[in-house]
């Protein structure tokens, strides 16, 4: 049975990889793979009835994790942090990710590429009318120098604007550290080249 199971998974994966399974409604979650012959034939049937013209794969979420506020998050997420990302790289990567089925994008104000995440997502959504913004879980984070309440709010609104979304699914404190800012909300660097006046936990009372 184990061998049969493995072969079935591999066939599914091959189909998936070749873009042969196109369902935009039926999530094929290979982590909880539909492995019975019955379910497998269902997939085939669905392939034949495919009518959309895009190459997007079905959603691949992994388990949906229910958080303490009742909101569900796909366990599989796509990291958008780009080390030495050249311009346009994140835009393309996000389209590839959404086309591959990811429905969870992890972003941050500090990554300085939220505009590309936003433009990539919008391009994907315009090409895939069956997928909505609400089908995608988006996280962003506030950086250390914006921990004053009005700065936290500014940071989120700045991220929302760049991500081209009216709301975020999760907003995180990026580090348990607070630092100083310049008047233009850039990170203040001290004369020693380090982030200026770093302090920690007491700042988090302000943060909330």
């Amino acid at each position, binding site marked *: 049975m184990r061998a049969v199971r*493995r072969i079935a*998974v*591999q066939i599914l*994966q091959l189909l*998936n*990889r070749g873009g042969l399974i196109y369902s935009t409604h039926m999530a094929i*979650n*290979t*982590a*909880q*793979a539909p492995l019975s012959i019955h379910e497998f034939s269902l997939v085939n049937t669905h392939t034949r009835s495919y009518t959309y013209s895009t190459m997007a*794969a079905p959603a*691949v979420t*992994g*388990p949906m*994790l229910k*958080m*303490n*506020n009742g909101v569900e*998050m*796909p*366990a599989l*997420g796509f*990291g*958008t*942090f780009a080390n030495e*990302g050249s311009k346009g790289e994140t835009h*393309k*990567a996000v389209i*590839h990710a959404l086309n*591959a*089925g*990811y429905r*969870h994008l992890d972003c941050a104000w500090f990554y300085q590429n939220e505009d590309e995440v936003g433009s990539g997502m919008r391009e994907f959504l315009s090409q895939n009318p069956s997928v909505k913004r609400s089908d995608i879980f988006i*996280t962003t*984070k506030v950086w250390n120098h914006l921990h004053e*309440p009005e700065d936290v*709010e500014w940071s*989120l*609104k700045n991220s929302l604007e760049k991500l081209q979304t009216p*709301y*975020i*699914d*999760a*907003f*995180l*404190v*990026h*580090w*348990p*550290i607070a*630092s100083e800012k310049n008047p233009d909300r850039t990170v203040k660097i001290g004369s020693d080249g*380090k*982030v200026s006046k*770093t302090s*920690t*936990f007491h700042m988090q*009372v302000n*943060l*909330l």
Partner: protein
Amino acid sequence: MEKLYHEGLARSIGLSNFTEKGIEALLKYAEVKPAMNQIEIHPFLPQQPLINYCLSKSIIPVAYSPLGSQDQVPGTGEKVSTNIELNAIADENGWTLAQVLIAWGLKRGYSVLPKSSNESRIKGNANLVTLSDEDFAAVNKVAEGRWTRFVNMKDTFGYDVWPEESK
């Protein structure tokens, strides 16, 4: 932050890089419980105690660098990506190492955030697989006793979130 949550601009609020001590302090005054804590997790930094703590407080752990980064373990020069045991598990199943590492995280019950800018790797990583109990145990064995953090911005910050690790 709680205000933004109540206004609906953020459907959830949460943490990243928080220690157990930090979360404990925050829970004393937070009106809205953090929904998640995003931390570095991979077989060289398995984070079991913090994962257990987070789950005990209904906070979902989210793994960044789940593929273990390209950095080397100081002293030994080891890398997650070239670990013999981990690669053997991938080869035996006809999977990539990334698929094994993602599956390991999902089986441990948290969210994983693989990152790539390469189209075929992005696709390949979304090809989710399920680790058998033996393979899961084999990854756990590699992780056992390890504690190498690759992401610590202490030199940039001038502050170390994990001072006990630098001793």
